[in-house]
């Protein structure tokens, strides 16, 4: 029932105004000393001139944010720079105004994850002409110093392919699948497309019995329960996030499915700790397209510093691979350990 | 003829406020509209102003007949009403107030020069002395009223209705207003003059209409009429109010107020003995309501309040109620009534806790208490579950009285602010009767505030006259009559003016 008005994006719309202003005020207040040092039209000539990296990540409500932030902070400390973070409340116009603030006070480097890529070309160009290093996160722009990329579409595709292969092998390609998707933001749309296209292409005989908006466990639980009311025999539930897949998993267990049922497959994306632990335990939560949080966190600091040291876009840019982790993978334990 | 009202009827929730009223006023005539509170005067005026649609009857203005008016139609038809509470904006200048909402425009811009010229002409016509640029809030009451009249005249009315225009004026200002009314009369305006002061009727009016209980009781020319005739026309049949109970000077005062002071008030000293009814009489703005609210703890105060010999230290309503004080406020709609709650809730809200057992309400006990109360106060209809807003003003007031005098709460001092405002004639007498009865039988001390001298004379054993937040006089026994009360406020006021 929450979902009547519960679209996290809507809630943030409702709040963005106050929160955005608060964040902007806080951001400018907290880093006053460093900004004075960095101001004065001084353009970074080497990584020594970069004392601050501003990381602008709009989806602070996603668990993955906290994970990446943790590693970025550690890396910043190692490199002796300070990490400044924005609070965009998941709202494109708040993001744009926060970036304007960062540009106006001339932080030496900005790493920004555009909610709408085309919309931030102006800010990126402005930053570049002000001598600020601009690193695009999660994609590329025309105007940029470098980029940190990981293909969302690919993460979805890997999960879809694995689930389809599992269905062919264990269900003979016949069964029911439900997708927990996101149609509201660009990265969600890409992940959704990769996941559904790959699955339906490789397992064309599976009946799609649900395609519901859900990015968090709470909503996913409610939606999956409703799907189960009509189709108690759903075999495969794929989630746009691990949070959503976790909610789907709970709904299946609550409906009486054994945690190790051989005819059930749940998979998600992001590599959340709770999901990884379920995979490790050998439940029917079988896979997660995991982001390598440590690699991404490091890149947030390393890429702008590399640009400051004179590396070109092509040299400095990093593409962080997304890996599908399953039971028995060495990477599984490694990522779980990273959370520790 | 300028105004002709024919067969006007209006009822509110079963209360017949107007029951076929006729009223005719010629151009160049001052017509006195008389009657006690609740006789239908204000309902008639509101009908003229378009506050509601009459159930039946017609209003004919300047030759055009209407079955009902909206406020806008009323103004367009040429009716101008000056209510007691003026509709001026204190923070704006005189000229801006006069043209508020009907600015003179030229090429889309406000034409200030033309406005100033027109405003000055209007003020001259009224004999007003205020400057065009004065802030209205800074003007004395009489000048404010003239600004309001100027505003009305700017719309070129056929009929001017003045609703108790002298109630808030000093005697000096009253004289000026009377001259203004005469000159407007000579200019051909039809003037409907609502008042309860006989002297004004004698001096100003050509004809009079007396309303009683929503009907025309008398409509006559005043030519050759003596004051005796007027009094007889207005006088109501003798009422059967129970006699005032004995007040023993030996009794210690039930309510004792010493050095009561606050913003604009005091110091006030007064005493009310058990069984005594004391009236606080004064003009609008004299501080009656604020005095009562301070005694009750609604407003912060200095000085001491003693009830039955024990001082009430904290200035909060809860502390006052615990000490045996109770207040029936003057603004019934805002401060007293819970309009959408039931009659029972309204009458018994503070008593429900006393009646409850183990924290649970006892519905049976509540129903019985309501029934007793409805009977003793003659609440009509006696339905406990009807919402309070469905009751007439008089019965709403009875519910509020019943909130404190239901035999369940320990009320020993009853404070009443304008106890019969917006109440019809019959209910008014019933309320008087109830107040008298609880004073004489339960020995409750009653302190009530009123702007109506008739009410003070009818109800009070003793009257205190208030002005500028202080008690300036006291009248009791044979010396307590309307003329003495009016004299007390107006006399002292003109004294003050002569001194300054």
């Amino acid at each position, binding site marked *: 029932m929450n979902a009547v008005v519960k679209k996290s994006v809507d809630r943030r719309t409702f709040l963005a105004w106050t*929160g955005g202003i608060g964040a902007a005020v806080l951001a400018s207040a907290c880093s006053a000393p460093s900004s004075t040092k960095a101001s004065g039209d001084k353009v970074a000539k080497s990584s020594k001139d970069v004392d601050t990296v501003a990381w602008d990540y709009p989806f602070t409500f996603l668990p993955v944010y*906290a994970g990446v932030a943790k590693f970025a902070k550690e890396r910043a400390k190692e490199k002796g720079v300070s990490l400044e973070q924005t609070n965009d409340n998941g709202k494109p116009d708040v993001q744009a105004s926060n970036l304007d603030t960062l540009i106006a006070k001339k932080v030496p480097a900005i790493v920004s994850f555009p909610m709408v890529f085309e919309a931030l070309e102006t800010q990126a160009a402005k930053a570049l002409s002000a001598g600020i290093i601009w690193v695009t996160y999660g994609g590329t722009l025309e105007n940029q110093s470098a980029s940190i990329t990981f293909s969302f579409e690919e993460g979805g595709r890997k999960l879809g392919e694995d689930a389809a292969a599992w269905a062919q092998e264990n269900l003979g390609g016949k069964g029911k699948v439900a997708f927990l998707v996101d149609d509201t933001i660009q990265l969600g749309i890409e992940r959704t497309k990769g996941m559904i296209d790959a699955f339906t292409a490789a397992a064309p005989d599976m009946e799609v019995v649900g395609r519901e908006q859900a990015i*968090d466990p709470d909503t996913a639980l409610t939606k999956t329960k409703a799907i189960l*009311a009509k189709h108690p025999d759903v075999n495969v539930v794929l989630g746009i996030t691990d949070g959503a897949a976790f909610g789907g998993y709970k709904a299946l267990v609550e*409906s009486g499915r054994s945690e190790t049922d051989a005819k059930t497959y749940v998979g998600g994306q992001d590599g959340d*700790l709770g999901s990884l632990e379920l995979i490790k335990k050998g439940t029917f939560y079988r896979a997660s397209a995991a982001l390598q949080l440590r690699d991404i966190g490091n890149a947030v600091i390393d890429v702008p510093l590399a640009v400051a040291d004179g590396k070109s876009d092509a040299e400095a840019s990093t593409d962080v691979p997304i890996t599908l982790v399953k039971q028995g993978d060495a990477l599984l334990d490694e990522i779980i350990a990273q959370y520790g | 003829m300028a105004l002709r009202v024919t067969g006007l009827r209006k009822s509110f*929730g079963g209360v017949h406020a107007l029951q076929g009223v006729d009223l005719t006023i010629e151009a160049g005539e001052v017509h006195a509209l008389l009657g006690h509170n609740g006789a239908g005067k204000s309902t008639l005026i509101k009908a003229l102003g378009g506050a509601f649609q009459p159930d039946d009857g017609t209003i004919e203005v300047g030759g055009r007949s209407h079955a009902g008016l909206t406020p806008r139609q009323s103004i367009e038809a040429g009716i101008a009403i000056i209510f007691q509470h003026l509709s001026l904006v204190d923070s704006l200048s005189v000229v801006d107030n006069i043209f508020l909402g009907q600015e003179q425009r030229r090429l889309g811009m406000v034409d200030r020069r033309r406005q100033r010229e027109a405003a000055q002409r209007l003020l001259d016509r009224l004999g007003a002395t205020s400057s065009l640029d004065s802030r209205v809030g800074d003007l004395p009451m009489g000048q404010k009223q003239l600004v309001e009249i100027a505003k009305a005249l700017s719309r070129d009315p056929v009929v001017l209705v003045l609703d108790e225009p002298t109630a808030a004026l000093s005697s000096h200002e009253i004289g000026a207003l009377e001259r203004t009314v005469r000159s407007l009369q000579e200019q051909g305006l039809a003037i409907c003059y609502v008042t309860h002061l006989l002297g004004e009727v004698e001096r100003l009016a050509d004809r009079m209409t007396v309303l009683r209980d929503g009907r025309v009781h008398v409509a006559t020319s005043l030519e050759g009429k003596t004051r005796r005739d007027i009094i007889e026309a207005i006088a109501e049949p003798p009422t059967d109010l129970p006699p005032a109970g004995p007040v023993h000077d030996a009794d210690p005062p039930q309510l004792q107020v010493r050095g009561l002071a606050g913003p604009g008030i005091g110091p006030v000293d007064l005493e009310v003995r058990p069984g005594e009814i004391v009236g606080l009489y004064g003009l609008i703005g004299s501080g009656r309501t604020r005095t009562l609210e301070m005694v009750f703890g609604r407003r912060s105060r200095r000085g001491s309040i003693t009830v039955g010999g024990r001082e009430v230290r904290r200035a909060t309503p809860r502390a006052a109620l615990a000490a045996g004080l109770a207040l029936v406020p003057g603004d019934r709609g805002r401060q007293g009534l819970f309009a959408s709650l039931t009659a029972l809730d309204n009458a018994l809200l*503070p008593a429900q806790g006393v009646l409850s057992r183990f924290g649970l309400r006892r519905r049976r006990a509540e129903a019985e208490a309501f029934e007793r109360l409805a009977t003793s106060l003659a609440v009509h209809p006696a339905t406990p579950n009807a919402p309070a807003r469905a009751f007439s003003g008089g019965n709403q007031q009875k519910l509020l009285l019943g909130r404190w005098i239901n035999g369940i709460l320990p009320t020993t001092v009853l404070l009443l602010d304008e106890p019969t405002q917006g109440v019809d004639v019959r209910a008014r007498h019933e309320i008087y009767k109830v107040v008298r009865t609880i004073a004489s039988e339960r020995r409750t001390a009653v302190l009530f505030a009123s702007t109506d001298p008739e009410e003070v004379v009818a109800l009070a054993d003793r009257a205190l006259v208030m002005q500028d937040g202080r008690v300036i006089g006291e009248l009791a026994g044979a010396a307590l009559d309307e003329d003495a009360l009016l004299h007390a406020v107006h006399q002292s006021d003109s004294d003050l003016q002569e001194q300054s």
Partner: protein
Amino acid sequence: MSTTVNPRQLARYPLIPVIVAMAIGFELSTGSFMGSQNLLGIATDSATLAIVAVPSALLVISGYLDLSVGSTYALGAVAAGWLASEHGGGLLTCVLLSLLAGLAVGAVNGFLCCVVGLSPFIVTLGTLTAVRGLAQQFAPLPLTSFGDSFAWLGGAKVAGLPSPVVIALLVVLVAGAILALTPVGRHIYAIGVSREAAYLSGVRVRTVPFTLFLATGACAALAGAIKASVLGAVQSGTAGSGFELAVLTAVLVGGVALTGGSGTLVGVVLGVAFLGILQNGLTLVGVPTFWQQVAQGLALVVAAGLAYLAPRLEALAAVRPQAARRTTSEPTPATT
């Protein structure tokens, strides 16, 4: 009041025919709506909403408002989940910590709104943002692995009913008893109708709404803890996001006026059921995401329209059966 459904009661609760119509429609189009499994699922999902909507409704009746419940819900979930996952907290201590967190938020809201007298809309909009930040600061990463003791809160069955439903029923019963059986119940309405008149009548016009803020905070946190227990996980960033609007919607669709002083608990429970059934049914039917939003919006407008018509229908229904029996004693509502 009679026990059979008469036209007057139907008119008072316009959601009843709407809910019946929705149930029939969903059953006909899916064939699986009326299954006991599904109905119980709706009840369990709606339980957390009911637990918060009921005290919120009392608050709105008294003329106040709490928008911070979505974040208080998250804080309560984080508090309980943190204790359960990091310190192996048992059921009782987890619930206690969660309630304390909720009471603290309620106390801040209540102090600012009832004692200082600030606008509840602005104050609770502020705490909505601030408390969410607290919850996220406290637990940036998802919390999982709660242990069996805490899992009991959301997963136990009492007399065949899931524990969230039982807790919701208790909340409804307690609130209903306060409203109908105690003097304080009348005070809640009185304050909402006219705070000034209530004050002059000796009603505790600060204490009563303050207590309701406390109750709303505690219930919101408890709901969060329950949901955390059901899910076995808490995400501080998304838990209960938008919940405040769902609560407000249930309260308003249930016929409680935002102006205070009117509304019934039956209406609020119907409002909760309406939202739960709508959400479930649209998913069952498989309506695409954005069309779901359109349908949900339209359903709300229809419900609001019926709430507008209700008093008029009620008046109509009241006139007909009574015209025969009564003549003049019943006062007709005044129009002024």
